[in-house]
């Protein structure tokens, strides 16, 4: 076991003292912390340049409206500073062989072209880079340079050069006083052995453009919920000013359409995404709250409102009673654009009255469902895991062993098992940590 305060060296570890966590979203982070707190080492592999996952992109969080960054940031630094956690961001697992107690894992560390131990995160290089591309962290609404961090709390606070867009002009190299940039760095593959594995690769959003009738991609003022989160975020592309990106106008009337790519067998997504009702309500409340003078009318179109978790029903009631959010039960037929003012006209049937409605909104937000993360099939194949019919990882005995997979020594947590909100993802992270530490304990010689 390692001494507190010193960073661990990967090669020195015994496999039964080490766990691998794949995916650095909120559930993977929690799993890593709870394993590391028991004195075991953890290697945390994250595909993007920063840990944090989707939660880092959110503005506020239901059901109490804390700001996501505020509550997540301390966790980010806790993970980054933990003496027993080795962070491998901008990395991917290439292959896994072996069994519980001794898995051999090969990790591809993509070349960041910035030396992690030298970069201080000052960002002095950024103004010098001539290349500007859309920032994926902002859902492509904002821009970043080829040398970038996705968001201010990027953890580790190290810049990354995206090789796809970099033209190797070398301007950044010259601008960096700490000589942290090396454009000749190449990808490397390293081998580690671990005793237990936690898969926490999260989820993907449903591509709402698949519903042509909702106009996403065709009409500028139809956006998806994650884009909305970025639009109202102080660190987002509009510095938190809610506006239509088409013309900078503050939308007076906003419609939220629920279950887009969820509970719809015709689109091959028959299951409920578990968080969309609540995040829809949250964003509706936030719109009123941020622009209480301007945003007059907020309507949510939904089938059922599934406010099931602790404090959720209370939150739902507050949205209705205190914020005056209007809920209309019924599937939306289609939306069209008012060619004059680019407003969006929503046609829906209110199933509680049987009436057909036509309402004009200045902005429409589609609330997409949750899909298994990209590449989950590959990860599952590497590990010999089964997927269930919805495409998430299968659990054999969910009532009693909810984070165990069919493969001994491999555990799952967060949305990779199925859609979940943050509290449930965090609890599952701790649970997977417990089960993984049991494997380490049993396989190790104690």
């Amino acid at each position, binding site marked *: 076991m390692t001494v507190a305060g010193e960073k661990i060296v990967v090669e020195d570890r015994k496999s039964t003292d080490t766990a691998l966590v794949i995916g650095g979203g909120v559930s993977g982070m929690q799993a890593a912390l709870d394993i590391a707190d028991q004195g075991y080492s953890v290697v945390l592999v994250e595909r993007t340049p920063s840990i944090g996952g989707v939660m880092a992109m959110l503005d506020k969080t239901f059901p*109490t*409206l*804390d700001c996501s960054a505020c509550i997540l940031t301390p966790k980010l630094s806790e993970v980054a500073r933990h003496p027993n956690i080795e962070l491998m961001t901008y990395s991917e697992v290439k292959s896994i062989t072996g069994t519980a107690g001794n898995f051999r894992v090969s990790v591809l560390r993509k070349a960041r072209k910035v030396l992690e131990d030298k970069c201080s995160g000052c960002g002095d290089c950024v103004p010098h880079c001539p290349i500007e591309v859309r920032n994926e962290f902002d859902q492509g609404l904002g821009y970043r340079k080829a040398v970038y961090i996705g968001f201010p709390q990027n953890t580790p606070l190290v810049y990354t050069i995206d090789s796809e867009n970099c033209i190797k002009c070398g301007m950044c190299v010259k601008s960096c006083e700490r000589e942290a940039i090396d454009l000749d760095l190449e990808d490397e593959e390293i081998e580690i052995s671990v005793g237990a594995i936690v898969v926490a690769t999260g989820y993907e959003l449903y591509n709402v453009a698949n519903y042509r009738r909702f106009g996403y991609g065709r009409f500028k003022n139809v956006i998806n919920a994650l884009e909305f989160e970025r639009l109202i975020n102080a660190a987002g592309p509009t510095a938190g000013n809610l506006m239509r990106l088409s013309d900078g106008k503050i939308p007076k009337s906003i419609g939220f359409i629920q279950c887009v790519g969820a509970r719809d067998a015709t689109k091959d997504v028959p299951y409920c995404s578990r968080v969309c009702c609540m995040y829809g309500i949250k964003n509706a409340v936030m719109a009123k*709250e941020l622009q209480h003078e301007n945003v007059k009318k907020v309507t949510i179109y939904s089938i059922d409102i599934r406010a099931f978790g602790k404090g959720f029903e209370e939150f739902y009631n*507050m949205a209705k009673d205190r914020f005056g959010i209007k809920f209309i039960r019924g599937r939306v037929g289609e939306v069209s654009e008012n060619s004059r003012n680019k407003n969006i006209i929503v046609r829906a049937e209110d199933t509680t009255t049987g009436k057909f409605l036509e309402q004009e909104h200045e902005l429409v937000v589609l609330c997409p469902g949750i899909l298994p993360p990209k590449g989950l099939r590959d990860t599952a194949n590497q590990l010999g895991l089964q997927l269930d019919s919805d495409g998430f990882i299968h659990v054999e005995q969910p009532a009693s062993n909810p984070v165990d997979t069919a493969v001994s020594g491999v555990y799952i947590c967060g949305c990779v098992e199925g859609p979940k909100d943050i509290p449930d993802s965090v609890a599952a992270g701790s649970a997977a940590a417990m089960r993984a530490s049991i494997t380490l304990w049993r396989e190790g010689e104690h």
Partner: protein
Amino acid sequence: MSGKRFEPSIVAFTCNWCSYGGADLAGISRIQYPPNSKVIRLMCSGRVDPLMTLEAFKNGADGVIISGCHIGDCHYSTGNYRTEVRFMALRSAMDVIGLNPERLRLLWASASEGQQWADTMREMAEQVRELGPSPLKGGSKK
């Protein structure tokens, strides 16, 4: 100056557990209330020394709120029993020295009672505004 409305200064001694949580919840839920009261965070309402309260009035407070967990819910099991007893004693003492006891309030608020917290802050501000500045203020007469 004279056109300005009197804005009372209110000290709110608040226990760290239920009540501070309730005050936080009021903020988290964006429930709006007047900014007259300033919270002084103590571990338990039982920490509030009656002398401290009188001291606050002497220093010019127009009102004082003592807030703790509901009876039975104190984080230190029985700390707030004391609070209640001391509160009663304080009110009689205030009467004696010519301070309207309405300037002192006891609020039991749990961590889920953001609304109650906000309501009390509002009511207290209004009530004390009505009562006018504390007669003890600045050692003045009245």
